[in-house]
């Protein structure tokens, strides 16, 4: 290290890293902040759509034998609700947060593969537009978000709805895999010098584990939806056809081998957000960092070993039952350790009760309750009663809304100043929390009871006199309370965009690197990349922290470090912004959309995709580094 102060020229950096103006510039942007923001905004639009679908379902179930929705519509809506929330909201919004925050947190200028990043977003958008675009032509899936054959097969689901569903999975899955690959490489190879793995923020750990889970889990859903379901439907294969040697249970195994990890894919990033918020607002280093990291990694592994608990009712051999019960309960250990560590942090910290902290407490309350019902459902005798009833509906909404949505909203309050340069209103934030928290419990707590008194899920109506009326009315009322809470939240965000208090770089005096960047960050993130000497770099006196000099500013140069210690290894030049990722996604989207009508569209997809890739990888002029 030299004492020479060689400050960066921010004007040159801005020209180098900024996007071109205008529509072309917008379409060709490959910057992680822009892509991340697009993911988050698009995902919130799908959250609204999925939420409206939920309200429609609640209205239909508000009274017995209701005729507000027909059976067909109801089945379509609950299929769309599940599909939208899982594939078009929950996963993408977490990816968006990761794409935006990870490069800032690890102290670099962009994600590892910016063009892949842009491509992933366009595929996601295309998938969402494909699903809802087809809805206008009444090609709406109605076999559930899980699409079990034979019900989803060619015989019992004629029409194109299920094909649309299956191919939409391909879109979102490609998108998720792109993000997973680039986040793993960003986290492992592009951390600021000195940020050894044991100094990495918890959020980055959670995104790392989540990305690896995506890499191992997502191919399974591709097999289930495309290879088994779509090929059986359109090509005449027999994977799930018992008459020709296939087996419907095969689909369930493969689907849940993806489907269970999917839950953790959604809520691990949320756990990372909780750690960030807790650390900042208790003003102390998070308690039990190694235990938290090990629990995350443990979660990642165990999550792949308990898919069968979604299939207990199919009648498995007893030994398998015992194993999967034990495995399903084991996941409560790793989740428990994390809760204990946060509680210990809260206990010994000096807590400040911001809106973000409110959401964290809401998370603890709801998620722990969801965990308890999860332990109940891990027990086979109880699962055989609770499975496919409203008890399960209650359970997984407690886990997913409590475990993912509340931390996400908390994280949104927490990072909003970084995204926009302005703070969200604290009072309105707390108000939206209380409305959401109360509305959530009013909606979903009665569902535990409904399930125990025999109401199955996925029914479009129920006959009177079963004792289900009151709880259903309460749940419907609660759903509208949630709506009000959501509107307050959105209103707060929109209002704060223009009138929120100016935030400055570090409004919370937080510990991690993203708060060293401007709010909102400049396109280059940091004028000089930071050097890290502790787990809480911003709580280390500035005099002890060095900065990186010597990176070229007139081209998109980044620093590659090694995996364990993040010691600088070499510089690397990133490609410029480009339209090709968008064009490649467009070509693939056209081909994949066509493929539900005829197989040759796959060739169209391949040819267009290949053309796109050639343009994407074609050497840029001038060549930026001499050969």
């Amino acid at each position: 290290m030299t004492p020479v102060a060689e400050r960066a020229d921010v004007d040159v950096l801005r020209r180098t890293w900024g996007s071109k103006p205008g529509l072309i510039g917008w379409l060709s942007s490959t910057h992680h902040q822009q892509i991340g923001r697009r993911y988050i905004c698009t995902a919130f639009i799908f959250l609204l759509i999925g939420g409206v679908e939920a309200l429609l379902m609640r209205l239909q179930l508000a009274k017995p034998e209701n005729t507000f929705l027909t059976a067909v519509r109801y089945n379509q809506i609950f299929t769309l609700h599940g599909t939208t929330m899982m594939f078009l909201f929950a996963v993408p919004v977490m990816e968006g947060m990761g794409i935006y925050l990870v490069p800032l947190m690890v102290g670099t200028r962009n994600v590892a593969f910016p063009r892949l990043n842009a491509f992933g977003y366009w595929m996601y958008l295309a998938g969402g537009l494909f699903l809802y675009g087809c809805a206008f032509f009444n090609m709406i899936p109605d076999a559930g978000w899980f699409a079990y054959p034979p019900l989803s097969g060619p015989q019992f689901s004629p029409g194109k709805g299920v094909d649309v569903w299956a191919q939409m999975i391909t879109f979102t899955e490609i998108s998720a895999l792109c993000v997973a690959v680039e986040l793993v490489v960003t986290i492992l190879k592009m951390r600021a010098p000195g940020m050894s793995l044991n100094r990495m923020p918890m959020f980055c750990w959670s995104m790392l584990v989540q990305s690896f889970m995506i890499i191992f889990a997502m191919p399974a859903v591709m097999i289930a939806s495309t290879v088994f379901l779509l090929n059986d439907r359109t090509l005449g294969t027999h994977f799930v056809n018992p008459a020709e040697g296939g087996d419907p249970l095969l689909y369930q195994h493969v689907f849940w081998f993806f489907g269970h990890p999917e839950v953790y894919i959604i809520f691990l990033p949320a756990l990372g957000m909780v750690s960030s918020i807790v650390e900042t607002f208790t003003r102390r280093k998070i308690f039990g960092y190694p235990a938290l990291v090990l629990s995350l990694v443990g979660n990642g592994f165990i999550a792949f070993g308990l898919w069968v608990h979604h299939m207990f009712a199919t009648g498995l051999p007893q030994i398998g039952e015992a194993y999967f019960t034990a495995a399903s309960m084991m996941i409560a250990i790793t989740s428990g350790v994390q809760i204990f560590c946060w509680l210990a942090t809260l206990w010994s910290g000096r807590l400040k009760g911001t809106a973000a902290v409110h959401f964290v407490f809401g998370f603890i309350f709801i998620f722990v309750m969801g965990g308890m019902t999860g332990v109940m459902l891990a027990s086979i005798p109880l699962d055989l009663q609770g499975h496919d009833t409203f008890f399960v509906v209650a359970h997984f909404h407690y886990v997913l809304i409590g475990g993912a949505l509340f931390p996400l909203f908390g994280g949104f309050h927490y990072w909003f100043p970084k995204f926009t340069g302005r703070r969200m209103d604290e009072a309105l934030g707390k108000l939206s929390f209380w409305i959401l928290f109360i509305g959530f419990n009013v909606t979903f707590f009665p569902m535990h009871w409904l399930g125990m008194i025999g109401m199955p899920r996925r029914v479009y109506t129920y006959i009177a006199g079963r004792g289900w009326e009151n709880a259903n009315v309460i749940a419907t009322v609660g759903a509208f309370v949630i709506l009000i809470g959501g509107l307050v939240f959105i209103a707060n965000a929109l209002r704060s965009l223009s009138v929120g208090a100016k935030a400055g770089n570090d409004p919370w005096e937080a510990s991690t690197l993203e708060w060293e960047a401007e709010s909102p960050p400049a396109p280059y993130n940091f004028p000089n990349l930071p050097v890290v000497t502790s787990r809480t770099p911003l709580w280390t006196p500035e005099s002890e922290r060095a900065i990186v000099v010597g990176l070229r500013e007139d081209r998109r140069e980044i620093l590659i470090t090694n995996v364990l210690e993040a010691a600088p290894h070499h510089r690397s030049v990133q490609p410029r912004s480009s339209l090709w990722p968008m064009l490649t996604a467009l070509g693939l989207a056209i081909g994949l959309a066509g493929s539900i009508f005829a197989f040759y569209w796959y060739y169209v997809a391949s040819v267009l995709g290949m053309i796109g890739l050639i343009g994407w990888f074609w050497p840029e002029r001038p060549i930026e580094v001499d050969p």
Partner: protein
Amino acid sequence: MNQSMWHASGSNALEVRELAVFFGLLLGAIFLVVIGIALLSLTRRHRGIQQEPLEGSHVPSFETESRLRIVVSVATALTVLILLGLTVVSVSVGRTVSASTAPPGSLPIEVTGAQWWWKIRYTNDDPRRIFATANEIHIPVGRPVAIRGGSDDVIHSFWVPSLQGKRDLIPGHTTVEWLQADKPGEYRGQCAEFCGLQHAHMAFWVVAETPDQFNAWFDHQLQPAAEPADDQTKRGQDIFLKSGCVLCHAIRGTNAGAQIGPDLTHFGGRKTIAAGTLPNTKGNLAGWIADPQNIKPGTHMATVPIQPAEMQPLIDYLESLK
């Protein structure tokens, strides 16, 4: 409340209810402890909620950290122990109640799921003592019943919460579960695996009777349908046999032998029509026959054209099939 795990009858459902209470109380207590600690942490260090600006970070004392480390370790160890205990309890209860084989001496019944009704077949070593019915299962109190499940179309799930948990009915597979009722009563069951349009209206009844009543019912079911006793029902039988009804339905003792829809031999004795959708009354039956799509949209029951004048005799005939 005769479709509820709380309204349990029979050893299986009772054991599961006990297990649920045990799990619920224990886990509920743990939940309260966790939330209690979280809330207590709010009152610690007499820090107000609205302090501004934030102070700098702090490092808790070494003693605090090591105390917390011990507490967290103990809590983790307790979690492991409790979960281990729950696993053992759960597996030992599951060994009997979720077994895939039935105890010896069980009454064998085949249940086949179909969109959207239940085909019931009482099997027997003596082929003369086999018969088919639909949507209503009678069982003797105090005797285990082996349910052998299958499906001809999509996946369904057989579930009578008051007697036993659910078991999926899967095309290409035969699944087994057993149940037993300890007291006479009527228990409602419902399909628990989404099976398409009318999944909501795919219910059935289990009627538990004393062994004597059951045997009488059983012997009666073996009989062919009652001959029409008067002109009206005779006319109804003619209408039935000449109509499209016979393309799907069987009435033993007549020429109607199709197996596509429910067997109607003793239809008049059943509690409900259309798989638990409507109580079995003449008015409901007329509505159902006249316009099945109105009552159960999407049902595979065909709308058979019946002249208005023919409806009453037809209804009277069907309801006479006790």
